[in-house]
């Protein structure tokens, strides 16, 4: 018994010592490793991650995933792409909601994938990495590739850092924003699509007062506005352009001026206040969650959304689904219509552009060591832009994941589990430049109109002249500065403050760093013109 006890005693003290050493060691290594490891890592990376010219090309690709299912490395579509492009692809899926965190830690760890999706090109972590030479500048190489060479110069400029491209942009429609509205309500009230701001206002008023859903109750209003106050598609950001306000920054006599200092911006704000006071927009817009944006439209409560044009077809689908559930669907009728916008006082359309791209695909130097390897990776991405490859990225394999109907339109498999686990998400690695897909899903008249409008819109976009600039002041204080303006404009719209108090907020903005921002932006602007 005693001997046993001694053994147990020894064991206990061993465990104890072990624990203490472990904790102290962890504590120590936390402080040390920060400096020591990166070098080792690069060395290790060369051994394990090296893409020596060997067939097929090994590609690790880090992409965001939006669903809870994801295509596996060896799933049929990925295998087919590997076969065609002579590659061996390994996907590193990262949940989209947490991509930024994972992105930062991956950057810091210096063990980077072959191709890395960069969500925010202007984010400090990426810009710093670029400045320290972590990524290939791909700009000069693009001309050598059939598809990549046709990249849109505007979007290339937008996605650049100081005019240099450190990745391939993933193209999106530039003229994507517009107005979605209830077509059946317009018809019910014998209204035409609005052409001017006044007609737009009259339409909202009619939607509130003239019982557009014909149920005999005053239970409708004009437009759904959400709390989202970002740079795009917040409704107001589109509407302000109708009044002639610049998009973020305006060029007044060669000087950059922030939008909220223009009279047109304030005019637009006053218009919003009028809509609010007359209850033509939802009174709770300042806290209304964007997740529920379309609900009032689907439920016959409101008639207008100012957002992306292509949202209309999705709302239309939802209305159809709701009607189908009630057994009163009319499949051939469209309940939604779209316009690019309404004409301003100058008789012209002004629409809010997108940046034209959704993130870039960058190629880290630590994973792709030589120029030859880089060229192979670029060739791979170039190949993905071939029309048939784009179709495959989006819809999978013909006969398995989709079929073609008599009009050559894609009919996607109804098996969502199959689509999610084998197809959806793979399209994240396509650049979609320069051509749109060869095949499209079945086009309804509404969808065709949407596509047309998006192209039409490009002629009317109000570009932000400060788009390519990376501002130090904004990086430091941008969030507070934006908050000042957002707060003030919401308070002004709902009537908590008057014009004088709004002007005070603008003065506060200038004092809190706005003046520095204006100065810096103008310096960057002047430098870019040289």
């Amino acid at each position, binding site marked *: 018994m005693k001997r046993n*006890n*001694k053994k*147990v*005693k020894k*064991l*206990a003290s061993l*465990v*104890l010592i072990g*624990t*203490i050493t*472990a*904790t*102290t060691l*962890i504590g120590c*290594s*936390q402080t040390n*490793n*920060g400096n020591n*490891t*990166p070098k*080792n*890592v690069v060395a290790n990376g060369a051994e394990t991650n090296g893409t020596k010219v060997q067939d097929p090309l090994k590609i690790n690709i880090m992409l*965001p*995933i*939006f*669903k*809870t*299912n*994801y295509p596996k490395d060896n799933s049929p579509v990925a295998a087919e792409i590997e076969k065609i492009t002579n590659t061996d692809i390994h996907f590193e*899926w990262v949940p*989209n*909601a*947490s991509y930024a*965190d*994972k992105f930062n*830690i991956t950057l*810091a*760890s210096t*063990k980077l994938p072959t191709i890395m999706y960069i969500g*925010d090109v202007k984010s400090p972590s990426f810009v710093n990495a670029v400045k320290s030479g972590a990524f290939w500048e791909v700009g000069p190489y693009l001309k050598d590739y059939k598809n990549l060479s046709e990249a849109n110069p505007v979007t290339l400029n937008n996605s650049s850092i100081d005019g240099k491209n450190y990745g391939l942009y993933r193209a*999106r429609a530039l003229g994507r924003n517009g107005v979605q509205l209830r077509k059946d309500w317009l018809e019910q009230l014998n209204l035409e699509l609005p052409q001017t701001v006044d007609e737009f206002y009259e339409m909202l008023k009619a939607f509130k007062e003239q019982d557009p859903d014909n149920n005999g109750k005053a239970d409708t209003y004009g437009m759904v506005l*959400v709390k*989202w106050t*970002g740079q*795009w598609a917040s409704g107001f950001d589109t509407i302000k352009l109708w009044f002639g306000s610049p998009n973020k920054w305006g060029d007044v006599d060669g000087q950059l001026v922030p939008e909220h200092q223009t009279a047109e911006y304030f005019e637009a704000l006053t218009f919003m206040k009028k809509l609010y006071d007359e209850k033509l927009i939802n009174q709770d817009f300042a806290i209304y*969650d*964007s*997740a529920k*944006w379309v609900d009032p439209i689907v439920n016959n409560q409101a008639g207008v959304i100012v957002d*992306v044009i292509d949202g209309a077809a999705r709302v239309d689908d939802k209305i159809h689904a*709701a009607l189908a*559930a009630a057994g009163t669907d009319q499949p051939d009728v469209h309940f939604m219509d779209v316009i690019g916008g309404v004409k301003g006082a100058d008789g012209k359309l002004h629409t809010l552009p*997108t*940046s034209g791209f*959704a*993130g870039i695909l960058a190629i880290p130097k630590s994973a792709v060591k030589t120029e030859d390897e880089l060229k192979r990776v670029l060739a791979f991405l170039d190949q993905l832009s071939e029309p048939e490859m784009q179709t495959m990225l*989006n819809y999978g394999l013909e006969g398995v994941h989709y079929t073609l109907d008599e009009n050559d339109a894609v009919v996607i498999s109804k098996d969502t589990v199959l689509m999610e686990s084998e197809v*959806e998400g793979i*399209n994240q690695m*396509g650049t979609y430049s320069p051509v749109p897909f060869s095949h499209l899903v079945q086009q309804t008249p509404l969808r065709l109109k949407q596509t047309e409008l998006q192209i039409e819109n490009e002629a009317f976009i109000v570009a932000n002249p400060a788009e390519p600039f990376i501002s130090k002041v904004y990086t430091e204080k941008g969030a507070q500065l934006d908050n000042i303006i957002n707060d003030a404009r919401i308070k002004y719209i709902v009537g908590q403050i008057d014009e004088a108090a709004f002007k005070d907020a603008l003065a506060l903005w200038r004092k809190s760093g706005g003046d520095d921002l204006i100065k810096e932006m103008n310096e960057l602007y002047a430098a870019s013109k040289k």
Partner: protein
Amino acid sequence: MAKTYKSVPGTLFDVTNYILLSVCALTAILPFIFVISGSFATDAELTKRTVFLIPETFSLAAYKFIFSTDTIIKAIGVSMFVTVFGTIVNLFFTVTMAYPLARRALKGRNTVLNLVIFSMLFGGGMIPTYLVIRELHLLDNYGALILPGAISAFNLIIVKNFFQEIPAEIEESAKIDGCNDMGILWKIVLPLSMPVLATFTLFYAVGHWNDFFSALLYINTPEKWPLQVLLRQIVLLSQAAAGDLSAMDATYVQPPDQSIKMAVIVVGTIPILLVYPFLQKHFAKGVMLGSVKG
């Protein structure tokens, strides 16, 4: 029980108290009930009615959808494994470290304690920790979710203080009766420490169950994601789609239906809530004992 005499103001006070406490309880419970009943409602109803407690049409569609693939089930498995195993590891290491530190006879006790407190005050931060984990080859390994936080310095100190409260005389008498140190710990100290153990079981278990960030950083294979990573993904998806340009895709990502989100929240929350009733009894005692010094 004899009836206690109550004055009018006293009754009034009680009534007001009951009302206030009921309101507090309701504000805590109602959102839960809403989410649970919302998960059984059809999506059409959720868009139509804003707040309700009993769905008009009872539908299991959201749950059917969730369990149509094995992704969530797998994730629940991962979460349970990490929670159960992680908590065992936590308790084992916390107790075995706290007990010796609680004994004044141990040499170098203060140095070790200071080191513990130091680690509590100065953390390495995200990136150094990540590098450590990588160098230890724990990336993509459940060990990365369990080992780095095996001992929480704060919890350790509370447990240590609790052990100190146990009269040394009991231990001495046990020793005289022929019990060794391990025996004292297992047969005397731990049985006396049930409240504190229950409390920290709960703290650690809830911590593991709710932890998504370390999984996000250290686990690269989607098959090994615990439930919270998926939960966050599903719940945040619609916000991302509305607010973030880069989230918008060539083929638009349809945000999941409201009812599916709620069903996922239920699936993600209920299991850990079920642990509470069993530990509740000890829990209140344990929290108090950890803090109040006698």
